[in-house]
């Protein structure tokens, strides 16, 4: 459970994130999706309940252990969250420098590779303030994958982007999963993306995961709350899945 003041945001979330797959959490604005995502990397601690990653309960780690533990994660934030005072290249290089990965030359090469992946070659020397919202988000994306983490968390990666960039990001997520074998959790309310990138889909509603399954399960769901979100009404059973990461806040 997690509440801010009197407002209860998460209440009895029970969720297993399968390792090596791409999971998408959907839900309306203000349903607590971002809060849920931040629990997974220990940015927010639950008021009650546990967050387990690979058998480690995050609340048992002290500050230093948690900091080290997070090197396994890469996270792209809603508006990019780029460091204003650094260039694009310095932003992408940041996790490599902090985690002491590679020589200077190798890091430069990695930055180029990441920029290519998000189709932003030539933007190295620009400052975040010189980029459009979509470009900032793509740089944030490049920064999240730079140190090749096992777990990638994406906070609304395509919301508000043009259709072409949206396709690029969606393709990138699928490619990352295949190439890096990373466990990916994306939160979004963009239904087109959901079916393109998700192996598993969960719906967060009033602080709980009310529906979980594969995209085909989801297309045929009977739950009117999911139906309303999908914009239609159909029928199908739920599925259960094996677990690597477990988020269980009660």
């Amino acid at each position, binding site marked *: 459970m997690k509440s801010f003041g009197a407002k209860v945001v998460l209440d009895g979330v029970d969720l297993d994130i399968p390792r090596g797959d791409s999971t998408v959490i959907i839900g309306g604005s203000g349903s607590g999706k971002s809060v849920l995502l*931040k629990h997974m*990397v220990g*940015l927010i601690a639950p008021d009650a309940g546990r967050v387990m990653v690979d058998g480690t309960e995050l609340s048992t780690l002290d*500050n230093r252990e948690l*900091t*080290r533990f*997070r*090197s396994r*994660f*890469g*996270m792209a*934030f*809603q*508006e990019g*969250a*780029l*460091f*204003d005072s650094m260039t694009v290249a310095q932003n992408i290089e*940041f*996790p490599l420098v*902090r*985690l002491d990965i590679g020589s200077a030359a190798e890091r430069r090469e990695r930055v180029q590779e990441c920029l290519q992946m998000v189709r932003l070659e030539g933007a190295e020397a620009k400052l975040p303030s010189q980029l459009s919202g979509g470009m900032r988000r793509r740089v*944030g994306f490049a*920064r999240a994958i730079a140190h090749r983490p096992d777990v990638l*968390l994406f906070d609304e990666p395509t919301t508000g982007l043009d259709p072409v960039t949206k396709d690029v990001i969606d393709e990138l997520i699928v490619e990352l999963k295949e190439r890096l074998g990373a466990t990916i959790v994306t939160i979004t309310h963009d239904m087109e993306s959901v079916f393109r990138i998700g192996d598993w889909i969960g719906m967060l509603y009033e602080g709980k995961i009310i529906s979980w399954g594969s995209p085909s399960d989801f297309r045929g769901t009977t739950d009117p709350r999911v139906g309303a979100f999908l914009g239609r009404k159909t029928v199908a059973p739920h599925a259960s899945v094996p677990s690597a990461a477990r988020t269980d806040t009660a």
Partner: protein
Amino acid sequence: MAFVPFEGFFREIGRFSQIFWRTLAWTPRRPWDLRELFRQMVRVGVDSLPVVLLTALFTGMVMALQTFTVLSRFGAERYVGSLVSLSMVRELSAVLSGLVIAGRVGSAMGAELGTMRVTEQIDALQVMATDPVHYLVVPRVWALTAMMPLLVLIADGLGIYGGYLVAVVLMGANPVSHMENTFQFMDLNDLSSGLIKAAVFGMLIALIGCQQGLSTRGGAEGVGRSTTRSVVVASVAILISDFFLTKLLF
């Protein structure tokens, strides 16, 4: 109900102690970012020089003007030099520079870190295995703690010069006896205690500015609130701690 105003006071003290200990704990840990430390020293020290100097010069001038008028009533105007120099060195340089720096540097720290908080840059740092206290607070706190005594030392000199200008040039006092009197009653303890105060004020301003910034909530309005609070809390802290430091040091 009478307790309510104190609740905020104690909460501030609690938050302050927390960031103080975390800063001390992170200071010896690698990697040390000396470049960032020097960058901050230039930003908070060198760039603050004009405003601090102007404050000190005019304070010295006003002191001389006031004391000359009053002391001449009982023929003691030859003591203007020592009155100005002792007031500046023991008290006024440090406190007035502290208040000006709280307005200039403390507010900037509150606004900068506050903006980083609401745009998720602080979260991004944490996900990239970087503790915000280590990366942002440590260099700012030590930069200001080191630069404040230097600023105050220069302010001492300029305040005394301001007093000289008014007493000798404007009021026609004898320059030789004025200068003699300026240093006649001053000892090293007067100077060093002022500089110790300056270092403490510098540390207070930086810690409070950073703490207010990091605990910012709620968008642009929140950043505005943190900026204001950085200045108000730091100014009050300077005035309160000044009393205790004076009691302790003299």
